[in-house]
């Protein structure tokens, strides 16, 4: 199955994406991950003001069949949470890179995302799965 992986995003092998604009990182999960998880029924996200750490869990996504940790690509402070998605996580699949973002983080160090994958690298990885 072919999914879209926008070129302006960076990707983690654990299937989260990050979009860096200025000091703000927008984090979400990829179309591939959403498809694999199946019906998403619950999102657990941090609160505004909480800090997140690169490589560590910032929340969970639950589908009917499983619960998975969400990993942060950056270290920083949460400035926004997507309440709309928390209320209706089943809509996450509609626009994973648009309306389906999860949290926005004010990053401390922009180079955090340097070691994340490009769209083509990520796409090559999931295609192999």
């Amino acid at each position: 199955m072919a999914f879209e992986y926008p070129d302006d995003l960076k990707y983690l092998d654990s299937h989260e994406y990050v979009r860096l604009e200025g000091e703000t990182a927008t984090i979400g999960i990829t179309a591939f991950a959403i498809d694999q998880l199946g019906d998403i029924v619950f999102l657990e996200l941090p609160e505004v003001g909480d800090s997140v750490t690169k490589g560590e869990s910032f929340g969970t996504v639950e589908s009917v069949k499983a619960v998975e940790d969400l990993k942060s690509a950056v270290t920083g402070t949460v400035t926004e949470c997507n309440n709309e998605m928390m209320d209706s996580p089943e809509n996450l699949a509609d626009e994973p890179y648009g309306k389906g973002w999860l949290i926005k983080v004010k990053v401390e160090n922009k180079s955090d995302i340097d070691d994340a994958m490009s769209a083509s690298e990520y796409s090559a990885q999931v295609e192999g799965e």
Partner: protein
Amino acid sequence: MSVANNKEIAKIARTPLFTVVQELKARFTSFGGWEMPVQFSGITKEHEAVRSSAGMFDISHMGKFTLQGKNLVSQLQCLVPSDLSRLVPNQAQYSVLLNPQGGIIDDIIFYYQGEDSTGLQKGFMIVNAATTAKDKAWLLEHLDTQQVEFQDLSTEKVLLAVQGPKATEILQKFVEEDLTPIKAFGHLDGTVLGKPAFLARTGYTGEDGFEIMLEPSLGVELWQILLEAGVLPCGLGARDTLRLEAAMALYGQDIDDTTTPLEAALGWLVHLDTKGDFIGREVLQQQKANGVQRKLVGLQMQGRNIARHGYSVLSENEKVGEITSGTLSPTLGYPIALAYLPTEIAKVGNQLEVEIRSKNYPATIVKRPFYRSKSRLSK
């Protein structure tokens, strides 16, 4: 996140329906040594189809044994706590094989087919996939094989479950015999698409429906024709949410070798008063007389957090038990779970907490089943 990787599935068994299921772009998972579809169009959609219309499951991975012998019923009586002598021909009994400690070796359905003119009794036993080898060894060890002929048809037959309020009506179009007079747990040797098949009004979804055992090629034919008739293909994911709403136990999770049927809220299949000795009787008799120490109860979570297998259940900040199964109930819209709790706590209405990722969330003990179908037949 770590999401499923289909390539990790090693060479394991596939059912005769694998190819037609694969054509439907099902997502597969490994279950009990078999590569089985976990979902087709989506667990919630499949779940809803079974609750409101009709869905079908390939359950050919389940163990299938035929048994025949002159004293078959009396021999099996020694291995289960249920009184099989009450069975009339073409009636089935859900029961459990017990070890001497009263623990459940497996949960099974025995389909009694009756006795012929020479006194030969015949029946089928359907068992769980992962426990097929264990059950077979146990049966061969404890049945007198001089008198009872045992045959393992597990890999030779297709088993299809067609479930939902419209399942019988749709299935009827392809079955020669009238299905309407068959009661829940009733069964017959019938004719599907002009060929012989075994049809039983049983299932694992809490809805009305049939389980059909047939030859592989006929099984594929029936699958395709039911698909065209509008029966939605369903995977193990929906099978799990459906059975959990109906509070049906999953072997290896809610029941196992260390849990007795009385602890597992299966007291209704234990008939101590009407039958003689059976393996495990002593323990069950003691538990019946003195009461059990723990009980399997239903829990309803207050929030949206899902209590899953292995999570701790707390009462006044002390761990009192563990979740055995849990999910978000698609029909009810809130998370439900099963857990073993000390008997003194296991009362409907009691407030507890479940620890989910280091935080505690409120839960209430509720009546089981969580969901009861309006269309399901009574026995």
